[in-house]
């Protein structure tokens, strides 16, 4: 059987996808295959081999950033079975792909089976072995570590996928399990901080059922779903002197159970119709979330003055969150050159709940209250946009958006007969405009200029968009063997009120080129500069003094990547690549802060946080040799180097690689 071109392309890509862990690239290796069996065409490939790594420096940071280990893997597998006439007995199309099975930190499998007109089934399964060494400040060790395995799976079944009446069934599940390290402050604000072991156990299940009906040009879809989530993580610690030195507060034992279980049943509905001059679609979603929780915490230890302490905290309650969302999009096509769209969105979410809180110190009730909390967010947004193609080479678009948001909050608590009640409300309106120009002076060349300008009156946070503008340009040249794209974007935001100012400036420049002059050689190169500087006014305490200062952050990121592929006489493939990321920080030095007369300077950590220069580089190489039509040998290598300029406790360098055999048949 002479394999057709498309078959070859499919297999090439499957093989290319087989090796992303070491050097994620799309370059083709492997050879075309495909066998006809009965009424089906079957393509299959397996790549299995051994992965190795050596490293120096911070193993924790390596695990957080890269995390590949030693051992045998099924790097990838690929299977497709297609019926040749579209009338298979049980199915017409089956495709199964896997990646990293057998110990890689990133594993996945996807499956699709379908029979024309009768059914379609899609499955995605993924696993992420995630490790986080914890937050670090000034190079010091953090306290929140995470070493969990997260798996997620999605199953979707469609009955009669090509008919006017379809039915949907679906199931999704997510699990997160593993050890973690958390922390807690105990025995008052002058107490101590203690590390806690946490046994993370989280499960999410979602079931859904739906239907779609197409009748007289109108398509109506509905779906009913039930999402359940439960967390049964528990926390504990043996005797511990605490993290803060020169503090006599210590614990002798600590245990906390904090289960919370809940459901989020939901309805979704959608409507769609399209005619010659208009189209309309609407979407409605209602979710009624509800979660019940209990907390039982027991701590025993010694206080600051050597007094033995025992504390129990018991909390129980229910939180609810009904959320309603409705969207309506109307599109008009008065001429073939003009499209006008109007989009209206309404979102209303209310989060409320109550709980009882009781704290017992040395077996005596010391604090008890009942709390009620409410947070409501209602947003209405409307957007009208016109898209006009003036000539074959010139087009315009522009639009206006208005959003109105109301945020309401109620904090209530009752201690005995004392009632605390703090309602608050904030209204926020945003007016913004967008515009853009498209140019196609040559068929393969597209040039786009666009912008966005907005004015918001009362954003919730000082760092949110308030007075902003966003300007960008993009160029794309796409020829048969060469593609060049370049873009620039500047985003300025100024959020200033009477007592605080905040501004951010980001400027991005990037370019990417892909060149395939010969079928045996291709080159891909890219460069990006991402600049960000923010400046915010802050007030803080240090050594019992109040400072009015500034929080400055400057990041100048340069990222470059280069890949080259050589196909050597149709028998071997050589791939080399290099990725370089460098934040050069700021050369301006620390920015001064305002210090009241007679006060000492602010903590050095304020200056240390202004920039965070580092370098992360990763050269790689891969070689693939064809032994026979059905067998290839692959070998790959990738280096990772991470280096911070100010601190070096997290620096690492790692050599990773693999060797594998690929069978295709």
């Amino acid at each position: 059987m002479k394999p057709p071109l498309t078959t070859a392309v499919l297999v090439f890509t499957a093989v290319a996808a087989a090796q992303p862990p070491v050097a994620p690239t799309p370059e083709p290796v492997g050879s075309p295959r495909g066998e006809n069996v009965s009424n089906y065409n079957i393509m299959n490939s397996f790549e299995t081999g051994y992965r190795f790594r050596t490293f120096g420096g911070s193993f924790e940071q390596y695990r957080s950033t890269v995390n590949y280990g030693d051992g045998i893997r099924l790097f990838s597998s690929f299977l497709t079975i297609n019926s040749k006439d579209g009338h298979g007995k049980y199915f017409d199309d089956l495709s199964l792909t896997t990646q990293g099975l057998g110990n890689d930190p990133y594993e996945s499998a996807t499956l699709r089976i379908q029979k024309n007109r009768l059914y379609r089934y899609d499955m995605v399964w993924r696993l992420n072995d995630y490790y986080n060494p914890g937050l670090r400040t000034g190079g010091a060790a953090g306290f929140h570590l995470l070493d969990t395995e997260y798996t997620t799976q999605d199953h979707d079944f469609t009955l009669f996928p090509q008919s006017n009446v379809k039915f949907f069934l679906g199931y999704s599940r997510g699990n997160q399990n593993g050890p973690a390290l958390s922390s807690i402050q105990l025995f008052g604000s002058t107490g101590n901080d203690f590390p806690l072991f946490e046994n993370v156990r989280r499960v999410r299940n979602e079931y859904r059922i739906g239907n779609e009906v197409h009748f007289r040009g109108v398509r109506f879809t509905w779906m009913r779903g039930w999402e359940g989530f439960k967390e049964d993580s528990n926390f504990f610690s043996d005797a511990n002197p605490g993290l803060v030195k020169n503090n006599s507060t210590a614990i002798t034992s600590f245990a906390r159970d904090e289960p919370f279980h809940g459901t989020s049943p939901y309805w979704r509905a959608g409507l769609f119709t399209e005619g010659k001059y208009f189209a309309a679609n609407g979407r409605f979603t209602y979710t009624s979330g509800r979660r019940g929780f209990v907390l039982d915490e027991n701590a025993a230890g010694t206080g600051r003055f050597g007094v033995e302490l025992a504390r129990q905290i018991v909390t129980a309650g229910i939180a609810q969150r009904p959320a309603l969302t409705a969207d309506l999009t109307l599109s008009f096509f008065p001429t073939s050159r003009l499209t006008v769209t109007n989009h209206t969105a309404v979102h209303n979410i209310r989060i409320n709940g109550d709980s009882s809180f009781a704290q017992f110190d040395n077996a005596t009730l010391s604090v008890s209250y009942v709390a009620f909390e409410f947070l409501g967010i209602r947003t209405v947004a409307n957007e009208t946009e016109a898209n006009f193609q003036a000539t074959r080479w010139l087009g315009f678009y522009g639009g206006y958006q208005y959003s109105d948001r109301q945020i309401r909050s109620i904090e209530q608590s009752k201690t005995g007969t004392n009632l605390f009640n703090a309602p608050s409300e904030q209204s926020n309106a945003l007016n913004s405009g967008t515009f853009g120009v498209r140019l196609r002076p040559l068929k393969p060349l597209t040039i786009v200029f666009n912008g966005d300008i907005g004015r918001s009156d009362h954003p919730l946070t000082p760092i949110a968009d308030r007075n902003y503008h966003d300007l960008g340009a993009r160029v794309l040249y796409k020829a048969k063997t060469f593609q060049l794209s370049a873009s620039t974007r500047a985003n300025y935001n100024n959020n200033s009120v009477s007592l605080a100012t905040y501004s951010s400036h980001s400027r991005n420049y990037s370019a990417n080129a892909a060149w395939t002059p010969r079928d045996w050689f291709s080159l891909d190169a890219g460069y990006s500069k991402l600049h960000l500087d923010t400046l915010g006014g802050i007030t803080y305490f240090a050594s019992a003094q109040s400072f009015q200062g500034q929080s400055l952050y400057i990041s100048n990121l340069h990222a470059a990547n280069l890949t080259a592929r050589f196909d050597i006489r149709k028998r071997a493939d050589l791939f080399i690549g290099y990725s370089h990321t460098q934040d050069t920080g700021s050369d301006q030095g620390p920015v001064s802060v305002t210090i009241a007369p007679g006060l000492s300077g602010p903590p050095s950590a304020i200056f240390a946080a202004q920039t965070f220069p580092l370098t992360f580089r990763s050269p790689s190489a891969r070689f693939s040799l064809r032994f026979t039509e059905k067998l290839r040998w692959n070998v790959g290598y990738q280096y990772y180097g991470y280096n911070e300029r100010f601190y070096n406790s997290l620096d690492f360098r790692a050599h990773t690689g693999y060797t594998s055999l690929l069978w295709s048949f």
Partner: protein
Amino acid sequence: MEQVGLRPLSCLLFLLPLSAIAQTGAGPGYVGNNVCRTCHPDVWSTFYKNPHYKSVASGKEAPEQTGCESCHGPGKAHVEAKGGKATIVAFSELQPKAILDNCLRCHAETLSRANIRRSSHTLNDVVCTSCHSIHKSPVPKFLLAKQQTTLCYGCHAEVRAQFSMPFKHRVNEGFMTCSDCHNPHGAPAPTWRMAARPRMTDQALSNEEPCLKCHSEKRGPFLYEHEPVRVDGCETCHYPHGSTNSRLLRRPVVFTMCLECHNGAGLGRQGAGVLPITGSHNLADPRYQNCTTCHVRIHGSNSDALFLR
């Protein structure tokens, strides 16, 4: 001698389609797939693997909705002219809007594509064939022209740079794809932000930020919500793609990020607005420079208004 030998072959190749037209008896201008395959065997030989083959396998669709001519239009003039891009709907010759309209004749009705006409991609002339290759797709699903990340990185080089940072979501590693969080066909206005920014972000259950699809423990509802999480979304504190800072934070040091909102100006911001609490700790003490050491439930808590447990 060689030319003489080729001439009958040419005639035969030309006559075959014409005879096929006579046999199919299709509607005006439509010739049927059997005619197309005569001159385009390379496309037809593997077309049974193409999702569009369903229209052929069905055998019940109208000529304008079957196989080649469902996209390329009636082929009669094309055959009579012995080929040529001027006599048929050739996508390489179409304007972007025409490509979009052509595909949307069948594909508009899926709800996930309902906002495609107002998507940023459409507004910037990125249409179906910019990302999809109908006849030479190298991936088993969705007929993408390249692997998804390669496609997206081709224009969004700055995003490639973000995913190359030391702390990032595992997209390059194959654990995630861009479309886990984004809808390249356009999405409704986000519920967690104002106006229509961002436009291309897919939404999770309850139309929340897509982050909550996986980080479901942060969905809540919590009795004590950290308001910015619900009002302005996760990117108030995190960069979603990648960062040089641990946990994708926007700042290398936690307390500066917290102080930029809890900046001591809360009382003057809007009178009776939702107030950010002013920090009152001694920041000269390293103990207080890592806020989340004590405020561990910073995304929301059921037990403590200050997120201490």
